[in-house]
Each structure stands twice: as structure tokens, then as C-alpha cells.
């Protein structure tokens, strides 16, 4: 452990002898908008995500079913939709290499940025949300927070081993600034607003 001690000793010797108090960080939530869902939708779209409008009546999951209708391999981690690659049977991430669509539920979303939070417990195998070609996220509209200041108060960041904000699909602009979706991760990310338990009991 001598490197550790050397580094800490050097820091203690060199710490600037100035007083710098730790400021409190406000939540910056004055003037919150009327509809968090509307703000979220706009932010998500800006970041290249797709917002799926549920039909006014009938099967709420119809936009999802239409998307996956032609897909060969669908891996669902949510009870609302049944895929044909059970996440419970996945032994290693390699078993997910051929997944066309993965379907997951967000713990919550952030209106400011258009982000959804996914974590290890709901994903079961973290890599599913990157190895799949396309990702569909179910989001309870009641789970949308105003901004990142509110988001980082959520318990997931203290409880989960892995938590991640997805904001639109995988993207790169590394060659002459040309925007490409699907750099290494998913080529598209769609979000369907759907209350938890709303579609339970339906057959996928």
C-alpha cells in the first residue's frame, strides 16, 4: 500500500492553503412547466429518440407490437410483452448478440434532457440494452422528473450497482461531424408512455 500512502502524503503536503467552502446546490425547479410529458417528448426527439404515441383507445401496446412484428429475435424484460428470447435463460451477454429488439422499463425519466434511467435489476443482463439492434422503453408518465437535480436524489443511484441514463440511441459524429445513429449500441430508441400495470393480464 505504499503508493497509496505516497500519493495521499503528497496531496497533504501540496494542498492549497486556502479556504473553499462546499456550496449547497439548489434544485433549480422554479417555473416548472405544466406538462412534464410534453417537455420530455420534445427533449427525447431532439436527442434522436422516438416517442410512440399510444392509441386513444384499445390496445395501448399497439405501437410496440407493430414495431416488433417483423423482428426475428425479441427479448423482453417486461411483463407487458412476451418476446421469443427469454432474458431469464440468458447465461452470458453473448446470448444476446442476435437480438433485434429489446424491451425494457425505465425506472424514471428526466424532462430536461429526455433521458430514461435503466438499471441492473430491471435489465437483468445489462448488455441487453446495447447489444440489441433496437431498444423500446416503457415509461410510466408519472415517473417523469423535471431535471437532473431531482433525478440524482433518486434512490437508484445509492442502491443499484449499475444505473444508466439513455438519451436517444447510440450516436456518433466522429467523422466530419456527420451524425450517425447506431455507432456501437442500439440503432434506435423508442419510448412508449405506459403506466405500470396498465396492460397487465394482456397476452403479448
Amino acid at each position, binding site marked *: 500500500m505504499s*503508493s497509496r500512502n505516497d500519493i495521499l502524503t503528497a496531496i497533504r503536503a501540496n494542498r492549497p492553503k486556502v479556504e473553499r467552502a462546499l456550496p449547497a*446546490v439548489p434544485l433549480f425547479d422554479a417555473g416548472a412547466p405544466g406538462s412534464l410529458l410534453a417537455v420530455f417528448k420534445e427533449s427525447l426527439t431532439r436527442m434522436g429518440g422516438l416517442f410512440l404515441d399510444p392509441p386513444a383507445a384499445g390496445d395501448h401496446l399497439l405501437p410496440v407490437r407493430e414495431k416488433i412484428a417483423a423482428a426475428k429475435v425479441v427479448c423482453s424484460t417486461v411483463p407487458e410483452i412476451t418476446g421469443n428470447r427469454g432474458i431469464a435463460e440468458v447465461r452470458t*451477454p453473448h446470448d444476446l448478440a442476435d437480438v433485434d429488439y429489446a424491451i425494457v422499463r425505465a425506472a424514471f425519466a428526466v424532462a430536461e434532457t429526455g433521458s430514461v434511467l435503466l438499471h441492473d435489476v430491471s435489465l437483468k443482463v445489462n448488455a441487453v440494452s446495447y447489444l440489441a439492434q433496437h431498444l423500446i422503453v416503457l415509461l410510466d408518465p408519472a415517473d417523469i422528473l423535471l431535471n437532473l437535480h431531482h433525478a440524482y436524489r433518486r434512490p437508484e*443511484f*445509492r442502491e443499484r450497482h449499475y444505473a444508466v441514463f439513455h438519451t436517444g440511441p447510440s450516436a456518433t459524429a466522429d467523422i*466530419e461531424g456527420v451524425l450517425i445513429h447506431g455507432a456501437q449500441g442500439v440503432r434506435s430508441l423508442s419510448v412508449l408512455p405506459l403506466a405500470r400495470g396498465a396492460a397487465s393480464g394482456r397476452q403479448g
Partner: protein
Amino acid sequence: MSRDPTPSEGTPAAGPAQVTASQDRDAIYRSGRRLDHAEGASRPLRPAPEKQPRGARIHGDRPIDQAEAAARFIAAPEHEQMHDARLWDLRQKRDREMHVIPEWETLRALASAIKEHTLTHLDEYLEQFETQAQSNGVHVHWARDAAEHNRIVHGILRDHGARSLIKSKSMLTEECGMRHYMASVGIEVIETDLGERIQQLDNEDPSHVVVPAVHKLRTDVAEVFAKTIGTDPDNSDVHYLAESQREATRPLILEADAGMTGCNFAVAETGTVTVCTNEGNADLSANVPKLHIASIGIEKVIPRLEHLALFVRLLSRSALGSPITQYTSHFRGPRAGGEMHFVLVDNGRSARLGMEEFWTSLKCIRCGACMNTCPVYRRSGGLSYGATYSGPIGIIIDPTFNARKYSNLPFASTLNGSCTNVCPVKINIHEQIYAWRRELVKQHEVPFVKKAAMKAAGEVLSRPAVYRAAVATANAALEHLPRFVIYNGLNAWGKHREVPHPPKQTFHSWYQQHRGEKP
């Protein structure tokens, strides 16, 4: 092969009007109908793309000649113009994002204050981070320098019998020369960020902290990929190139023995490593192999989660003008059946903390905003600096690693202060650049012409009346001096650019005339 019945067949073409498709050498060539016996075309089939200017020439510890490399970059107009326009576009996008956040300046002030507080209590927060990470089941290592970092990473890989490592972009591992080291011990390192992968395959360092291949044209990338991953050398379509890289890299990701990421923010209270990427490649690197190693500069620690919100809000807006990166990942502990290692790296940082004029450079969150706004950087390319860190932040960090080798870099600046204005953590970059010039003169690392000019400028600038007289005289002189006096080898400003027309009147004399007598 069908016969063309036109009468001119077989006869020499008298002029362009009589050439038929079958006689057009280029047309035959492209259609592949005729065996060409490797004959040369009399004229190029397409104009050859402009060759990519390479970076600074490195000669051991000898001072990098940034100006020489910059001159070569400027001499490649397609590269220079694309680079300048692309980075200025990022700067403008940053401005647009900033203007819609009313609390922007408050965020900057808070972020700066939090970083300064943390740095002045760095030992305490590092110990807290270590304790938390260990209680989450993470192995924590400490590395004094680059060599120890590489040895530690190699040791972890060896213990797991790992032969291949997929990784996301990390300026720290660049700083440590890790790829080079791993090659020497037979471990294959695969960069998974598109820009970084391009640079790796081209055997070239990243030129920018956020967009590593920003100095390359698509034709340069097409050439690199044609040689390395077998793409069509004539196809420089960006979608084609990006897709080819995705297809070529994916099997390597799936088969890799270990994964590595850097760290944007290390949260002390939870022991969390936060990584911000757009491609999802850090999450693949960390979540596909069983072993995840994160390399962390000791200055990356912040006290609490509530502070993370500030930095995440500032980072991508400052870097790319987007509200957040596509992925903001929080690694707090290993996956079931997996293993996670954090390597905390000093490599000169604790010494920098003791430099009274320069310690606040440790606040840097590596957004690259100062590079995007810098007129010198935009027109000279990051590789002209010949160092891991380039642009305004680079020229105040690099001399801490090697004052002699990087002694020219603090002179690659106009001291316009734009870097300081855009810095999300309010580092006084341009003042530190000037302070480095003074420091290097003191250490005798500066050549005579610069030193004499600095000394004269210092004396003039320290006395307002002398300064005013000097400006008036210089303006008058610029109007009347012959060109060879202004544009000679001693005036670096006269190279590649016209000296601006001198104003008719100095601001001071205008002010005296118009406002001076009013109460």
C-alpha cells in the same frame, strides 16, 4: 463484349466531340469490361484527395515546434477549413444551449466552487471514495505514475488470463501510453469509440479530447479503413464507414476477455464511477466481458451525487452543445459473477496541486470547449501540439509533465481569453498561459527572440502611459513602414496573415476627445 458499330471505332479520336463511350478510357476502366493489364491511366480517374497533414515532429525531449506543424496544417486548406468550421460549429451549438439555461452562470460558479473545495480536501474525498468502493465490492488500486498504472492494469489482466481488452476513450490511458505498453506484453487493446478507433488504426494520437479524429477528412478515414478493416478505398461515405467499423468491431467486443473505461466523475459518497459517452461503447466495454477496469485520475473525485447533477448538466452542453451525452453511466459495483477494479492515478497531479498559479487547472472536466473556441487550435489541429493534451487546457497542463519539451506550447495562444469565458469550471486559462510564459522564461526554457519580446512587452504593459505612447507610435509606424519591416522572421504574427490595418486613433485618445472633458 459487344461491338460498338460507330464509324469512329478504331480510329484516333480527332476531338472530344467524336469520342464514344467505348473509346473513353475512363468509362471502360470503370465498367470493368476490358482487362487493363495494369496500364496507367493518362490522367487520374478522380482528383486525388488532399493528403492529411501529420502532427508535430517529436525528437525525444527537444522542444516541440508547434508552429512548424501548424504551418503544415494550414498548408492543407481542405483540412484546415473543415477543422475550423467543425469546431466553430460546436462552439456555436454550445452557445445556443447555454442561452436557454437561465442559471448557466450560476452552474459554472457552483461547479468551480465544488471543484476547488474538493481539490483543497482531495485526500479526504479520495479516502472516502476508496472506502465506499471497497464496501461495494470493488478492488481499488493506487498508481503513482503512468508506469505503475500500466503495471497494475497488466497485473489484473494477467491474473484473469486476459489477452484482449476492449475499452472506451480515456485521456488518462493516452497520458499513460497504455496501448503501447500492452502491445509490449502481448495484450491486444481494442478502442471502441469510433474516433479513437480511427486514430488507433492509423497509429496516431487523438487530436481532441472529445472528438479524437476531428482533424481527419472522410477521405482520410476511408484510406485508413481500406488498409485496416478492408473497406472500399473509393467509398468515403460516412454512413458506410461508420457501419463498416461497427460490423468489424462487434465480434471483437463479443470475444474480448476484459473491458476498460475511463471516468468522468468519481462520487465519493457512493463510490460511483460516472462515464459519459455518446456511442454506448463504454457500456459495452463494461457490461460484456466479466472483468471491468476503470482508470481514474485522482482529480476526478467530487463529493456527492447532488454535485454530479451540476457537472452532467455542464459537460455535454459545453463539449458538443447537446443537453446530455446519449449515455451517462453509473458504475457502483460489479455484476453478479463479474469483477470490478478501480485504478486511481496520480501521475503528476499531486505535484500540480502544489503549484500556486496552476493548481486550478485540476478543475478541468475535459469538455474541450476551450479547444473549440481557440483560434490557434482551430487552425493548427490538435496534433501540432505534440502532446497528450492540446489547445488552451493542454498548453497549461503539458509543461507540468515536461517543461523543456513543451516549452513552446504556452506561446501558441493569442491570449484573447475566449477559453476562460467558455470554461464550465471557470479555469482562468489565458492567465495561466501567460503565467507559464513567465515561468518558462524564469526556467530558461524560452528562446532569445521570444524572451526579448516578452521582456519589452512586460515593461511597456506595466506602465500605462508608456503603453499608450507605444500603441500610438506602433499604429503610426504600421501605416508607414515598408512590408519587409513588418513581415519578417521575427514577427510570428505576420506569418500566414496580414497584420490588421491600424486604427486612425487609439481608443484612449478617442475617449479623451469625446468623453474626457464631460463630467
